[in-house]
Each structure stands twice: as C-alpha cells, then as structure tokens.
C-alpha cells in the first residue's frame, strides 16, 4: 500500500482540477480542501497510528476520480472520512475490565 505522502501529489492535482472545473463553487471547494488538510495534519500529529487508515481513505478518493463522474467522491466526503479516522484514533484503545479488587472506589 502507498504511504500517505506518496498520495499527496495526486491529491494536489485533483484540487487544481476541481478549482478549474467547478467555477461557481470555488469557495466551497477551498473550504473542503482546507478541512482535508487540517485533518491530514491531525492524522500526522495523532499519538495513535492513523496514517495507514487515512491513506486508505485517500486512495478510495483518488480511485473514485478515475471512474465516471457519477461515482466521484467529493472533497467534502474526504474531509468527513478523515475526521472519522482522527476521531477513532483519539479514542483510547479498549482495555480489559478491571477486577473487583482493582476498582478505584
């Protein structure tokens, strides 16, 4: 599987393409991609490993862009999915329940 940073140049090209093609909604596109990059930085700063999952999401986004227009994923979708990755990574991992004599009260 490709590393997150190997996917960035392709993502940049799609951003440039979207700005070009969707003239009327350029501000929305700017907002969506700004969120995408914020989330990517969150992924990289996350204390729990999240890069692999984020790469999968980006790959899914990039692959969809090679399909017919009806199947394209939007940058809004990408930001939403990356946010889920970040949220999941933030949650402490499940622990085994404490035994009776280990309870703090």
């Amino acid at each position: 599987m490709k590393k997150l940073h190997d996917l960035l140049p392709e993502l940049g090209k799609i951003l440039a393409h979207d700005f070009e093609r969707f003239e009327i909604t350029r501000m929305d596109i700017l907002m969506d991609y700004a969120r995408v990059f914020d989330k990517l930085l969150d992924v990289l700063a996350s204390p729990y490993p999240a890069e692999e999952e984020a790469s999968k999401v980006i790959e899914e986004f990039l692959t969809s862009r090679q399909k017919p227009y009806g199947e394209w994923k939007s940058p809004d979708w990408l930001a939403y999915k990356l946010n889920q990755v970040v949220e999941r990574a933030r949650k402490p991992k499940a622990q085994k329940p404490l035994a009776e004599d280990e309870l703090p009260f």
Partner: protein
Amino acid sequence: MEKFEDLLPELGRIFAYDLERFKDYWFDVLYHYGAAFDKLFYIVGVENPDLEKRVVEVVKEFIASRQKPYEEWKTYHWLSDELKQVMGEGLNRTYEALRGFVSLLVRRIAEDGRNTGFSRSFYDIVSDYSLIMDYLMAIFSHPDIDIVSEAEEALEAFLQGKESREWLKYRLGRIVDQFQ
C-alpha cells in the same frame, strides 16, 4: 478588481506543482499550504472588501513571482506569512476597538460579584459573565469592523447602565450568531 476566486485555479496548480517538485519536503508543503488555505477561507469569509483586496494582491504577487526565474520565486512560507499579516491587520483593528472596554467590564464583574452573597444570583452572575467573555473572545478573533462596532455599542450601553447584564449576554450572542 480581480476576484479572489478567479485566482484559485492557478494557486491550485502551483500547489500541485510544489507537492510534486518538493516531494522530500511534503510535510512542509502540506503544513504551509494548509495554513494558507485556512487563512484564505477565513479572511474572505468575513466579506470585508479591504481585506479581500489585500488578499488578492498577495496571491497575485505570489503567482506572478512563479513566472519569473527560480531565484525570484516567492515560497509557500512567504504566502502563508503574508496572509497571516493580512489577517493580523484585520484583527488589530478589532483589538484596538475593544481593548478599552475590557478593563471596564472586568471592574464591573468585580463589583457585581462583591454585591451579592453566595447564592443563586451569584451563580447567575458567574454564568452570565462567562458567556459574555466567551462571546467577546469570538468577536476578538474576527476581523470584521462592522461586527466590532456592534459589540462596542452593546458594551457601551451596558457599562453606562442603560441595559442589563442579560441584555448584553443576549445581544453579544446575536452578534456572534451572525458569523458562526
């Protein structure tokens, strides 16, 4: 004047180019363009023509430099720094306008706190002022002079005793709702 949106495709192309060319510095590229996009969205979102004009100038200068020889290129660090500057210019005006009120407001909070016992009304005071301060924080970080003057008027009315604390809370809440 050229519209800001019209510059986005070219900016997008340069971003894509930088990601490709400076592959080894991908984090730096991502970080600074990410910051630049955030600031662009923020500044343009407040719909202040003066600030938008400045943004257009900055982005145009950046794009124009990229058509010159490499030595004369502006970097994405430059872009992000300049936009921070523009945002700061907007925010400075906000600080300037509201700064004087804050010390008066804090004095008023102290007085109100002294004049009540530890009771329900004390709780109300703390909770109201906490909300008022939250709203002021939001307004402080917003570079829009119209909204700031509305907040100024509200604070003035309250501090002169013309309006109540509840009214101020409500009024500032409404102002914040306009942009949040």
